[in-house]
């Protein structure tokens, strides 16, 4: 009997300890998940606030960030809604010029050229469109915009992009030394891809926040 009791006591001590550890582990995990969810909610709320609250004070130029261009040279659907938003602020005379910034690959793929063609076709003078062919990512666009602003005596700019991209773009512009940028978001049709882009932007935002991009110096022209 004693033996049985002893063996039970000996066997239950590590089990109870393991149970306690597991419980503590679960509590820590639950708290970590709760904290992560809270942080993610606050981050997404901030992303939505910055992205959906447009600052439509007049600016000298709009910076339109590039996106995919179709094989026939026309803007892809995401780029088209950005350009349409840019045209809305232009025809309301909120901006006077455009800096169209995007990537180029080889002789046939040129985002700024496609953006320029679309803007000209919709009533923007060619002379009022400045092409930045070195805007291969958001930070490069911001740096090149800063250089263009100095060269062309442009004092204020309005960022034109999708709502989920505005907060990171504002951060990139701030890192590049442009603190008072206005912004306007594109009228993006509802689609599931937004969930992926919000996730992607969340990761990219912290890469921008913690990586010292300024150490890379000026990229492009």
């Amino acid at each position, binding site marked *: 009997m004693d033996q049985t009791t002893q063996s039970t006591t000996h066997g239950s001590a590590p089990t109870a300890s393991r149970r306690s550890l597991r419980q503590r582990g679960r509590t820590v995990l639950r708290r970590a998940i709760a904290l992560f969810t809270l942080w993610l909610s606050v981050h997404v709320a901030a992303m939505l606030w910055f992205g959906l609250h447009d600052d*439509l004070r007049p600016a000298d130029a709009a910076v339109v960030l590039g996106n995919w261009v179709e094989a026939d*040279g026309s803007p892809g659907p995401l780029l088209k809604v950005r350009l*349409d938003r840019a045209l809305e602020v232009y025809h*309301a005379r*909120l901006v006077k010029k455009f800096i169209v910034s995007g990537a180029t690959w080889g002789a046939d793929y040129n985002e700024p050229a496609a953006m320029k063609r679309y803007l*000209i076709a919709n*009533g*923007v*003078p060619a002379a009022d469109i400045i092409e930045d062919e070195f805007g291969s990512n958001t930070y490069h666009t911001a740096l090149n915009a800063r250089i263009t602003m100095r060269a062309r005596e442009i004092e204020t700019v309005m960022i034109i992009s999708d709502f989920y991209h505005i907060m990171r773009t504002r951060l990139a512009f701030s890192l590049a030394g442009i603190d008072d940028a206005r912004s306007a978001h594109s009228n993006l049709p509802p689609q599931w891809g937004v969930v992926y882009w919000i996730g992607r932007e969340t990761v990219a935002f912290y890469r921008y926040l913690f990586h010292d991009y300024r150490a890379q110096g000026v990229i492009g022209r």
Partner: protein
Amino acid sequence: MATATATSSSVILRTTSLHKTYRMGGEDLHVLRGVEMSLQKGEWLAVLGASGSGKSTLLHLLGGLDRPDQGSVLFGGEDIFANGSGGVDRYRNTTVGFVFQFYHLLPELTALENVVICGMIGNGVLAWPGVRAKVRARATEMLERLGLKDRLHHKPSKLSGGERQRVAIARALAHSPALLLADEPTGNLDANTGGQILDVFREFHRAGQTIVMVTHDARVAAAADRRLTLEAGRLAGA
């Protein structure tokens, strides 16, 4: 001779041998090859042409949105490109009104605000208090004339396609431009609504508005006084 002089003096817009080439996908596209045209004051001219024929390019050159490679655009006898970019900007902002296939109205503003905002920005912050009432009255008058009396305070999302285009026309004409340039103004509308937009053009034309309209649709072009067709980079009378 007297007749000839009168005719010559009523020419408001003239082009001389306009050439324009674009580089697309590594190839040169010679879109305009010596376009010659003239427009009388108060005339409504339609330029017909297939997609890619260069009719929008021609309209952009007439409006000073782009520069020709060769040739000139004369408004009131003066080359619009002769006085540098400042001169073209003045011509575009004071003399020309543009209407496009798509309306590009700010969705967060009402119809009235979309028309007023151009006057607001154009006059600058300091002058705005002095001209505010006048600009607002003019915008209201234009929108009412275009049949939008009950839609002044509606946002674009609450307006039909035809109503949005009428707001865009009011915005284009609010500063009383001498020349209205329209690029496929009915291209995004059904036949019935497109007909209503042409009625609007007809009414302003009767009141003396000079209009150049480009379209691919012969039925739309039929509303104009005169039609020219752009083919192989040159204009031919229809």
